């Protein structure tokens, strides 16, 4: 029976993503024509994460993985597939369903000098352990004036999946990113997933690593450099996914895919959008964002989470504070609807940003007129 369950799940992804396959409008499509180095190889985000975990565990014996179903089940979303066989039950630990307990245990192990990777099956469940993430992990280095550092990674899927309802769809980027002492990363592509997870595991501070369930199965081209085991991306640096000059669109995680699709549509209408993949929510790469807005003079922020006090709010304010004189239009925010996530497919569609929302906001920022330079 165990074998049958395994097969079923690995074939189509977890039960939670079955609906995802029948709701194509929610799936991000990566364009292989974007600014990646010329690469023959493609890799799914899932494999990117798995290989990053594998390589970091191999390189440093202090790194270990704990969470629900990470071991024998091969990972609820198969991210930790093969790791139990390779590293054994001392380093890949299946935990009971007790987030507060195992998160605290992870932080305590980090105090003592180990490098835990704590997996939350989704970040919704991290709320059960949030005291340990904030009060036991994030603040300890400060309160102890540097005696207690906490080299821990909290990772797992964040934000909306498909059809999973209100309690399983929240985006926690804004909550965690507001806390000094934490670092918060959000990969989009496989290159992001590999580079940022490796950086997170090597980092001496607590890192919240926000993945996205609907991206796990997406393939992206990866260069030889990305595949190398020493590959690492810098923390705190955003990536310009697509250069442009008429409007800056910031996004992270799955929304980067939607922003790129929006940019394609806008290009056909003569608006050359610059798409920034934030990669790092805390520290936020204000320099890259502001430099971009100083070039384009217009800003649209995109996020999946609740709008009030969200990531977009911080980015908009940063731009207003630092680059007010450069703005030619009011800043625009696209975010999830200000409601708990509904279940019905039609309502769900209206609760999450769609490509047309981003296009509309970008046009508003451009006053629906075509900047002269865009015609060239």
């Amino acid at each position, binding site marked *: 029976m165990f074998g049958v369950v395994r097969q079923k799940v690995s074939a189509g992804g977890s039960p939670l993503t079955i609906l995802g396959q029948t709701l194509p409008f929610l799936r991000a499509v990566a364009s292989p024509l974007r600014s990646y180095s010329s690469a023959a190889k493609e890799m799914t985000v899932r494999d990117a994460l798995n290989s990053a975990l594998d390589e970091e565990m191999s390189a440093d014996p202090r790194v270990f993985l704990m969470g629900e179903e990470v071991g024998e089940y091969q990972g609820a979303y198969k991210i930790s597939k093969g790791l139990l066989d390779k590293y054994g039950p001392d380093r890949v630990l299946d935990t009971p369903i007790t987030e507060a307990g195992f998160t605290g245990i992870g932080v305590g192990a980090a105090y003592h000098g180990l490098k835990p990777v704590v997996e939350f099956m989704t970040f919704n469940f991290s709320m059960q352990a949030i005291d340990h993430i904030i009060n036991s992990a994030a603040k300890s280095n400060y309160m102890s004036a*540097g005696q207690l550092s906490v080299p821990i990674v909290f990772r797992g899927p964040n934000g909306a999946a498909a059809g999973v309802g209100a309690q399983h769809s929240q985006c926690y980027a804004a909550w965690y990113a507001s806390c000094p002492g934490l670092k918060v990363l959000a990969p989009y592509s496989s290159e992001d997933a590999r580079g940022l997870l490796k950086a997170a595991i090597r980092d001496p501070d607590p890192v919240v690593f926000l993945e996205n369930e609907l991206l796990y199965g997406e393939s992206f081209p990866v260069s030889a450099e990305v595949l190398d085991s020493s590959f690492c991306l810098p923390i705190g640096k955003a990536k310009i996914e697509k250069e442009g000059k008429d409007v800056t669109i910031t996004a992270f995680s799955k929304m980067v895919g939607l922003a790129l699709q929006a940019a394609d549509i806008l290009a056909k209408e003569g608006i050359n959008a610059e798409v920034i993949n934030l990669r790092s929510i805390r520290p936020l790469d204000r320099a890259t964002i502001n430099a971009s807005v100083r070039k384009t003079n217009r800003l649209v922020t995109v996020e999946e989470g609740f709008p009030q006090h969200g990531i977009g709010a911080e980015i908009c304010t940063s731009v207003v504070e630092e680059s007010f004189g450069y703005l030619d239009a009011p800043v625009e925010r696209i975010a999830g609807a200000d409601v708990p996530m509904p279940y019905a497919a039609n309502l769900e569609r209206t609760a999450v940003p769609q490509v047309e929302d981003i296009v509309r906001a970008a046009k508003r920022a451009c006053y629906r007129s075509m900047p002269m330079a865009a015609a060239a």
Partner: protein
Amino acid sequence: MALSRAASSTPHANLLKPLAAAISSSSSFFRRSISTDTTPITVETSVPFTAHRCEAPSRTVETTGQELVGFFRLMALMRRAEIAADSLYKAKLIRGFCHLYDGQEAVAIGMEAAITKKDCIITAYRDHCTFLGRGGTLLEVFSELMGRQAGCSKGKGGSMHFYRKEAGFYGGHGIVGAQIPLGVGLAFAQKYNKDESVSFALYGDGAANQGQLFEALNMAALWDLPAILVCENNHYGMGTAEWRAAKSPSYYKRGDYVPGLKVDGMDALAVKQACKFAKEHALKNGPIILEMDTYRYHGHSMSDPGSTYRTRDEISGVRQERDPIERIRKLLLSLDLATEKELKDIEKEVRKEVDEAIAQAKESPMPDPSELFTNVYVKGYGVESFGPDRKEVRAVLP
């Protein structure tokens, strides 16, 4: 109490060392003819241990004259320090929260006598004496309480956030119950590293009902971790008596499938015996719970008079009958290991030490304003941080 003893004391040179040395069995402590005797003595604990799912250790504890004098000195120092902290708080030199340990000293002392600095201790916010037991200095204590640079957390932590990682002391935690899973995590790391050492996670009767305790205990038992959970049962969770908070206040039994031992927490030798037993158990068989029956003379914190939910008679009764320092004093006198005058001299000396440390701590400056932005991260990547007016105060995190 039944006892036996051997030979007389031998003179040693007087060494003025930090109090940590006072309880280390390899250092010498001497003042005129006070006992530096290391010949074994056996003493019976005040009451027998009560066991749950294990066989209680013997009531007969091995000790030495030197150890007992060391206990007296260090407990007197801890007592004096906490009383001094009370005055400093009333003088408004200590701000915010201040949770005092006087009455509970035997737990810190007895535990240290049974373990090494490779073993880890983690506790909640009533941490001043536990920190002293792990080798922290009076200067670090008073400076931290007053928010000065010489503090153990450089003034950035305060009363509830004392740490001494090099001596296996992991704090100092303000959130009730959080230190328990953290302590189990320390034990996890010790087992992972094959350290042959154990971790003690201390908590109160108030925290004993926390869900995360049972979550962590379950994992400790599943994974055979060398974790020892120590309930310092002073019978009141802030203003709530144990019988009002716990359906079952037999905290040593609350581990259910995990063995437990109930200990007279006012008897330093009983605490020592129990911790020794627990360490041996944890290294072989996984987690165990120790319930220390203890008492705090002060209220929960300096903002609690401590007399609205318990009678003054109760407090003075415990002081009369069970005070941990008086117990050791009586023992030393009855065993002829010290004279009354010698013990009084120790108390005077200790008082002087505390006063000097306070004077020195008062000289320590407050942290430099730039310290607002230090230690946010180990590695800040040159990122910017902001003061309340970000156009006025910004800093780069190294």
